C-alpha cells in the first residue's frame, strides 16, 4: 500500500498527547506512598473513572485493529464479541463476583485463589498469568511497530523503544493511579479520534442502508446468503451459511459463555481496575458503567472494517492490499481507512488514537504484571516478610523488567514466530478452563484446593488434546491443530475450532473439579470461606442506594439495552 505522509500538524498532535500522558504521570507521582498506592491506586477511584479504565485497558491496539479486521472478514457477526460475550459477562462480574473480589480484600486474582483454595492453585495462576501479560504486551508492541513501519515508514526499533519508554515513564512515576488516569484520557481520545472516520465512512457509503446494500454484494460474491455480512443472528442456523463458520450453539457456549466470562471475570488485567475502586458499591458498579459505552463500541471498531470491505468489493481495483495468500489483508483495514478519509490534521488525531489504544493495552498488561509478580510471586515465594517500602521498590523494579521482557518478546516475535504462536496457544489452553474453577469456587463451598488445582490441569490438558485431534479447513497440521496424528474432526473455521476447544476445556475442568472435590477432604472450613463463597457471605444491602447506583438495577438496564441492540441488528 502507498505510504501515508504526515504533516507537521499531525506530529504536533502526537506530541501534545505524549506531553499530557507524561504530565499526568508526573502529577500523580506524589500520591504513591506505599505499595497499595502503587499497585491498587490506594483503592480510591470513583466508579466512573475505574469503569472507563476497565474498558480502556482491554481496548489495546490489537483489539482495535483486530475487531476492524473481523468486521471486514465476518461482518456484523463480530458484534457477538460485544453483545453476546462481553456485556453479559461484565454484568455478571459486577453483580455476582465483585462482592468476593473486593470484599475479600484480595490484592489480586491469584491471591483470591489462594484465600479460596490453596497455595498451588494460586502459584499456577500467578505464574501463567505473569507470563501471558508480558508476552501479550510484547506481541502487541511488535504488531504496532510493524504496522507503523508499513504505513508510515517509521523505524521499527524507534517505535518499539519510544512506546516502551513512555509507558515505562508514566507507570514508574504513578503506578496504577497513573495508568488508570491515562486510560481514561485514552478512552476519550480513542472515541473522539475514530468517530470522524466512522461518520465520514457511513456518509460515503450512504448510511447503514447503503452499507447493507454493498455488503450483500460482498456476501453473494463469497457464496453466502445476502445478509451474511450485515446481520448478527440470522445466519447462525448452520456453520455453512455464515463466514465465521459457526452455528448458534458453539457461538453461544464457546464465545458467549466460556471465553467471554473467562476473560472478563477472571483476567486480573481488567479486574484490577475494579479492585482499585473507592468502595464496594463503586467496585460493583465499575464493570456495569463500563458496559454502557462498551455496547456502542461495535460502531466504533467493527463498522470501519465493514465499510472497508464494502468499499473494497465495490471499488475497481479494490481498497485493501492483498496479503501473501491472495485474500485481502484485513489487518490493514484501520490504517487504510484512516488514509482513505482523513486529511492531515484529523489523520494525526486518528493515529494518536491508535497509539493511545496501544498504550492503554500495554499499560494494562504492565500494571497487572508488576502486581502479580510482586505480591503473588516475589512476596509469596522469594522474599516474604519484608517492609512495605521493600515491596514498593520491587514494584518499581518489576515495572522496568516487565517492560524489558515485553521488548524482548517483541523482538523474539520478529525472529521466532513459531515459538510465540506456541506460547500463545499454551496460554489459551490454560485460560480456557479457568472460569469453571472460579464459578465452583464462588458458588460451591465444597470445592477443595486439590479439586481446583487438578481440575485446572485436567481442563488445560483436555484443551490441548482436543486441539491436537482436530483442525480447521485448509489449515496446515501443527500449531493450528492436528498435532496428535489422528484427525477426529475438521471445523469449517479456526474460530469454530477455538470455541469448541474452550467448551471442552471448561466442561472437563467443571466435571473434574467436582469429582476430585468430592473425593478429597475440605481444606477450608466455613469460617475460612466467609466473604469468599456466595452462600457464606452476607448479601449486599442496596435498598438505601438511589436506583441508578444499585448494581442489580443497572445490570438489568444494561442487559435490556443489549437485547434491544441484538434485535435491531438481528
Amino acid at each position, binding site marked *: 500500500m502507498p505510504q501515508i505522509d504526515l504533516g507537521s500538524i499531525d506530529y504536533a*498532535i502526537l506530541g501534545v498527547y505524549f506531553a499530557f500522558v507524561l*504530565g499526568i504521570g508526573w502529577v500523580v507521582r506524589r500520591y504513591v506512598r506505599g505499595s497499595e498506592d502503587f499497585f491498587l491506586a490506594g483503592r480510591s477511584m470513583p466508579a466512573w473513572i475505574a469503569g472507563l479504565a476497565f474498558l480502556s485497558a482491554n481496548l489495546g491496539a490489537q483489539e482495535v485493529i483486530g475487531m476492524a479486521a473481523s468486521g471486514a472478514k465476518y461482518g456484523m457477526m463480530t458484534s457477538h464479541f460485544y453483545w453476546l460475550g462481553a456485556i453479559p459477562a461484565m454484568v455478571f462480574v459486577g453483580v455476582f463476583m465483585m462482592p468476593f473480589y473486593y470484599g475479600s480484600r484480595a490484592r489480586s486474582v491469584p491471591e483470591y485463589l489462594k484465600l479460596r483454595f490453596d497455595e498451588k492453585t494460586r502459584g499456577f495462576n500467578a505464574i501463567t498469568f505473569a507470563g501471558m501479560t508480558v508476552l501479550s504486551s510484547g506481541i502487541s508492541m511488535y504488531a504496532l511497530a510493524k504496522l507503523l513501519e508499513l504505513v508510515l515508514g517509521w523505524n521499527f526499533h524507534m517505535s518499539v523503544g519510544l512506546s516502551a519508554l513512555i509507558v515505562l515513564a508514566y507507570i514508574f512515576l504513578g503506578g496504577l493511579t497513573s495508568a488508570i*488516569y491515562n486510560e*481514561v484520557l485514552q478512552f476519550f481520545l480513542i472515541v*473522539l479520534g475514530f468517530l470522524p472516520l466512522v461518520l*465520514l465512512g457511513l456518509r460515503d457509503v450512504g448510511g447503514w442502508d447503503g452499507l447493507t446494500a454493498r455488503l450483500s454484494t460482498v456476501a453473494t460474491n463469497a457464496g453466502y446468503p445476502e445478509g451474511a455480512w450485515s446481520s448478527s443472528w440470522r445466519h447462525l442456523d448452520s456453520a455453512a451459511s455464515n463466514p465465521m463458520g459457526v452455528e448458534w450453539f458453539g457461538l453461544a457456549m464457546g464465545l458467549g459463555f466460556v471465553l467471554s466470562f473467562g476473560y472478563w471475570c477472571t483476567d486480573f488485567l481488567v479486574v484490577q481496575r475494579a479492585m482499585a475502586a473507592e468502595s464496594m458499591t463503586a467496585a460493583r458498579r465499575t464493570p456495569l458503567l463500563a458496559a454502557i459505552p462498551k455496547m456502542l463500541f461495535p460502531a466504533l471498531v467493527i463498522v470501519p472494517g465493514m465499510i472497508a470491505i464494502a468499499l473494497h468489493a465495490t471499488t475497481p481495483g479494490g481498497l485493501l492490499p492483498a496479503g501473501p495468500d491472495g485474500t485481502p489483508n484485513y489487518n490493514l483495514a484501520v490504517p487504510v481507512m484512516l488514509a482513505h478519509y*482523513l*486529511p492531515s490534521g*484529523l489523520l494525526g488525531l486518528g493515529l494518536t488514537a491508535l497509539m493511545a489504544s496501544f498504550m492503554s493495552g500495554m499499560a494494562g498488561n504492565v500494571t497487572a504484571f508488576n502486581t502479580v509478580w510482586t505480591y503473588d510471586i516475589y512476596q509469596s515465594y522469594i522474599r516474604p516478610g519484608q517492609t512495605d517500602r521493600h515491596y514498593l521498590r520491587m514494584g518499581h523494579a518489576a515495572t522496568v523488567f516487565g517492560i524489558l521482557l515485553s521488548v524482548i518478546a517483541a523482538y523474539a516475535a520478529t525472529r521466532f514466530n513459531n515459538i510465540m504462536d506456541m506460547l500463545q496457544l499454551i496460554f489459551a489452553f490454560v485460560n480456557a478452563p479457568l472460569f469453571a474453577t472460579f464459578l465452583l469456587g464462588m458458588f460451591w463451598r465444597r470445592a477443595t484446593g486439590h479439586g481446583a488445582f487438578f481440575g485446572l490441569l485436567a481442563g488445560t490438558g483436555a484443551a490441548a488434546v482436543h486441539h491436537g485431534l482436530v483442525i480447521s479447513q485448509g489449515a496446515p497440521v501443527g500449531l493450528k491443530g492436528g498435532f496428535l496424528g489422528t484427525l477426529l474432526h475438521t471445523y469449517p473455521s479456526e474460530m469454530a475450532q477455538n470455541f469448541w476447544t474452550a467448551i471442552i476445556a471448561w466442561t472437563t475442568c467443571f466435571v473434574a473439579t467436582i469429582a476430585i472435590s468430592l473425593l478429597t477432604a475440605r481444606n477450608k472450613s466455613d469460617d475460612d470461606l466467609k466473604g469468599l463463597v456466595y452462600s457464606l457471605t452476607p448479601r449486599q444491602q442496596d435498598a438505601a442506594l438511589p436506583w441508578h447506583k444499585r448494581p442489580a438495577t443497572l445490570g438489568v438496564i444494561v442487559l435490556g439495552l443489549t437485547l434491544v441492540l441484538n434485535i435491531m441488528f438481528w
Partner: protein
Amino acid sequence: MKLDLRLPIGLMFSIFGVMLLGFGVISDAAIYQRSLGINVNLWWGVVLLIFGLVMLGFALRARGAERGTP
C-alpha cells in the same frame, strides 16, 4: 483531594480543538477531497473544543465549590 481528571482531559481536547480549527482555517481546500469535500478539521475542531471546554467548565466549577462559596 486527588487530581480532578476532567482538568487534563478538558485542557488536552481544548488544545486539540484549537489546533484542528486553526489548521482547518488556513489549510488548502484541496486536501479535503478525500473527506468528501467537507472541511473536517474545522468542524471536528469545533466539536473537540466544545467537549474540552465543557470538561474544563465542570472541573473549574467543582474547584470553586470546594473552596467554599458562601
